[in-house]
Structures are given as structure tokens and as C-alpha cells.
């Protein structure tokens, strides 16, 4: 693992009217690191990563990605950075007027021009193979189940071979087995493409599997950070509450470890 920060956030503030969501988040992520962000629903996790890719405008703060402050870039320069980033949305956000194949082609074609048809086909099949859903290639998003949507969405994210991938709740709304499959996929993507990942999740098993560092957001600030082990054994009541429910699940018989 190289020791250069690929993401460097300093004092990120974001408010919607009177609702102050982020109140000075500072964070660095090194290349190849897999960071998990935890926090109660509505604590501003999605807002934070949306600010990072320029979907929302930060009120204040420095947001460096690949060493450039994205708050100071114009649209064209920002898009250059975005070409190196993958973003998996909370609901999948597949283009529902397009088939799975078109979803991937669309993303690929706008990512790099002058690709031959064979090349595109090859990359699509490779991406779908990574998520194990080649047979869904000609389906429309409306014909897919929730888990399949997440996997296709993951395929669409990795097809451009991004250096950083943001996952917004990749396992939310899935049964535990499917959730674990997705976590494994994330893990294999991390290994195969050597990406840096930022993973927002409520799923502690996913957090344990995919993350090598965890931060907890509370009241618009980073409350605590550390490895899974460190946080699990924390004496803080609030931190403990995150792990408590999960351990009860995990203790149930027949639950995959």
C-alpha cells in the first residue's frame, strides 16, 4: 500500500437552509485504502460523498481528490476527475429506459471515445462476468430484482475501471445472503482492480468484510475512527450500540460468519 493521500478533506461544511448537516469534516484516505463510513440515518453520509464528486456544492472546506481541489474546478475540469471515479448509488440508479447492455454501453462510450464495437462488447461481458450476471444482458432494469439491480449497478461502476469507487449503501434492502454476496463482490473488485473504496453502510458484516478503516459520523462531525476490532471493543455506549444488534444476528444459529 502506497502512502499518498488520494482524498484529502479539510473542514467540510454543508447546510440545507437551517439544517446544518456537515459541520467540519476532515479526513484523508490513502491510495488503496478501503474506508467504511457509518452513522445514523440522516447523519449526512450521502451528502458528504455527493459533495466529494461535485453533485452537491460544499459550503466551505477543501476537497482534494488526486491532489486537486475540486471546489475550484470548472465543469470541464471536474468531469476529467469524474472519469476516474465510480459512484454506486443507494438505489442503483440504472437508466430505466435502457437495457442492461445499453446502460453499460452508454457509460463506456461517454467515458472513452473511439472504442470499437468488439472492444465494447468484450468489456461489457467482462464487467457482467465480474458480477455474475451475464444472462441479464438484454433485460430491462424493470425486469431485475433489487439484488440484481445492485449488481448491475456495480458492473456499470467498475466498467470504467475507476481508481476510486464510492458505494452508497451497497447492501441496503437486501436479504443477508445477497448482502453478503454483494460484500464479496466489493471485496473482489477491490482486489482485482486495486481500487480505493469509500463504503457507506448500515450493514456491519459488510463493514467488517470490506473495510480496513471505519469512521463514525455523528452530529455532522467524525465522532470516532479506527479498525473494526478497535471500534467493536470501544467502551463508548454510542459506538457500542452499532455493533450490538449485529452481534445478536451473528450469534443466531446458521448465520454465515
Amino acid at each position, binding site marked *: 500500500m502506497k502512502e499518498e493521500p488520494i482524498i484529502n478533506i479539510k473542514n467540510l461544511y454543508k447546510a440545507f437552509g437551517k439544517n446544518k448537516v456537515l459541520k467540519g469534516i476532515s479526513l484523508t484516505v490513502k491510495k488503496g485504502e478501503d474506508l467504511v463510513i457509518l452513522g445514523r440515518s440522516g447523519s449526512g453520509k450521502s451528502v458528504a460523498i*455527493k459533495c466529494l*464528486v*461535485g*453533485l452537491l456544492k460544499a459550503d466551505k472546506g477543501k476537497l482534494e481528490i488526486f491532489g486537486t481541489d475540486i471546489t475550484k474546478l470548472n*465543469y470541464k475540469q471536474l*468531469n*476529467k476527475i*469524474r*472519469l476516474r*471515479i465510480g*459512484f454506486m*448509488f*443507494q*438505489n442503483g*440508479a*440504472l*437508466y*430505466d*429506459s435502457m437495457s442492461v447492455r445499453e446502460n453499460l454501453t*452508454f*457509460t463506456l462510450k*461517454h*467515458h472513452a471515445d473511439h472504442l470499437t464495437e468488439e472492444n465494447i462488447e468484450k468489456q461489457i461481458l467482462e464487467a457482467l462476468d465480474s458480477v455474475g450476471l451475464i444472462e441479464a444482458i438484454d433485460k430491462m432494469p424493470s425486469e431485475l430484482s433489487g439484488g440484481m439491480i445492485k449488481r448491475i449497478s456495480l458492473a456499470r461502476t467498475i466498467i*470504467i475501471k475507476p481508481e476510486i469507487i464510492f458505494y452508497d449503501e451497497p447492501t441496503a434492502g437486501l436479504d443477508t445472503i445477497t448482502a453478503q454476496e454483494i460484500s464479496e463482490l466489493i471485496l473482489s473488485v477491490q482486489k482485482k482492480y486495486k481500487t480505493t473504496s469509500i463504503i457507506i453502510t448500515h450493514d456491519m458484516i459488510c463493514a467488517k468484510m470490506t473495510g480496513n478503516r471505519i469512521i463514525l459520523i455523528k452530529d455532522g462531525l467524525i465522532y470516532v475512527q479506527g479498525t473494526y476490532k478497535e471500534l467493536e471493543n470501544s467502551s463508548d455506549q454510542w459506538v457500542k450500540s452499532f455493533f450490538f444488534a449485529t452481534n445478536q444476528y451473528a450469534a443466531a444459529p446458521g448465520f454465515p460468519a
Partner: protein
Amino acid sequence: MIAIVKEQLTQAGNFSLFIGRFFKEIFVPPFQINEFLRQCYTIGCKSLPLVSITGFIMGLVLTIQSRPTMTKFGAESWLPSMVSLSLIREIAPVVTALICAGKIASGIGAELGSMKVSSQIDAMEVSAVNPYKYLVVTRILATTLMVPLLVIFADLVGIYGGYIGYNVHGTITMRRYFSEVIEHLDFLDLMPATIKTFFFGFFIGVIGCYKGFNASSGTASVGLAANSAVVTASLSIFIVDMLAVQITDLFF
């Protein structure tokens, strides 16, 4: 009260910016030709049946309804040209545009609205596709181009409807009817009427896109976007029409 005024002004400002962005982005490559053609197809071809039926009925009904009055003045022979003139100058453009507002503006509003709500627009944005260019510019161009074509088509079908309507109570050959129509048609009848349809098309596209693109989150807002797209687009058609008539009056 002040808050409402402020809200309205903000809306108007945002809307102007939205239109301004259209004229800025339309000249900057890359051009999304494929998507533009696809939109022309969806907007144009799919509205054709509806527009033909209404066009036909307008011509037919107008002829049948005007006949008694015209006969009273002994001007029955003027019927073909009067009907086609009112169709071309006013009725076909406005009615067709209103139908397009109902069908196209609501369709665009709902489509873009649901794309917005389900983060598909954000997804485009992060994959470095300019969603304004890909979704909005293509649609506005398509409506601006297709609505005039639909209106011309409605004119033709409407005049044909008039021919059928004439033959309900009288007899006239097709040839005679159409030569009547063409004889009294002036370039000045066609020109302003056609020009204003481009504005109708433009506003249908812009308003549909604006409402959809600015839908707030939540599924209810998709319906709201579609609904207010229709209402606003219909209203704007009447306003544009009124202005167009005033301007034409001034110059010709």
C-alpha cells in the same frame, strides 16, 4: 406575501437561466445526434395519430358548423377557403400545440422527473455526461422541430376533413375544393402561423424539461412535475399566440 413574491421571482430567474443554458450548450460539441433523432421519433411519430384525428375533426366540424351562417350570407362558395384559412392561421396551430402540451410536455416532465428522483440524472453527472446536454437540449430541439411539422400535418388533415364536411350537405369535387383553398391562400397566411409554431414547440420542450429537471425528491413530485408542465405549457401557448397575433398585426 413578500415570501411569495420572492419565490416567484426566484422561479422566473431560474427559468431564464435554464433557457440561457440551452442557447449556450446547443453550440458546444459533443452533439448528441442519436438521442436527438430518437426524441424526434418519439415526439413526432408517436403524436401523429392523435394529431391526425383531432386535425380531421377540427376541419370537419368547423365546416359543418359554419355552413348555416355562410349560407345565410349567400357565401357558401367561400366555405373551403374560410375554413382552411382559420385552420391554418389559428385553430390548427393552437389546438395541435395544446394537444402536444398534454402529450409531450407531460411525458417529458414525468420522464425527467422520475430520472431526477431516482438519481439517474446524478448518475449521468458523475459519469461525466452532461445531463443537460444529453437530456434537455435534445428534447427541446426535438419539440421545436417536430411541433411545427405536426401542425403542418394537422393543417393538411384538417383541410381534408373540411372537404369531407363540405360533402355532408353539398357536393364538391376534391379538385375543385382544393383549388378553392389554394386560390385564397396567401404567403402571409402561412408564414406568421408557421413561425409561431416553432415558439410553441420550443416552450413545450423547455417547460417540460424545466419541470422535470427541477423535480424535488419523492415520487409525488413526478406527478407534480408532469401536471404543472402541462398547465404551464398550455398557458404559455396562449400567451405566445396572443403576442404572435399582435406582432403580425403590427407588421402586415
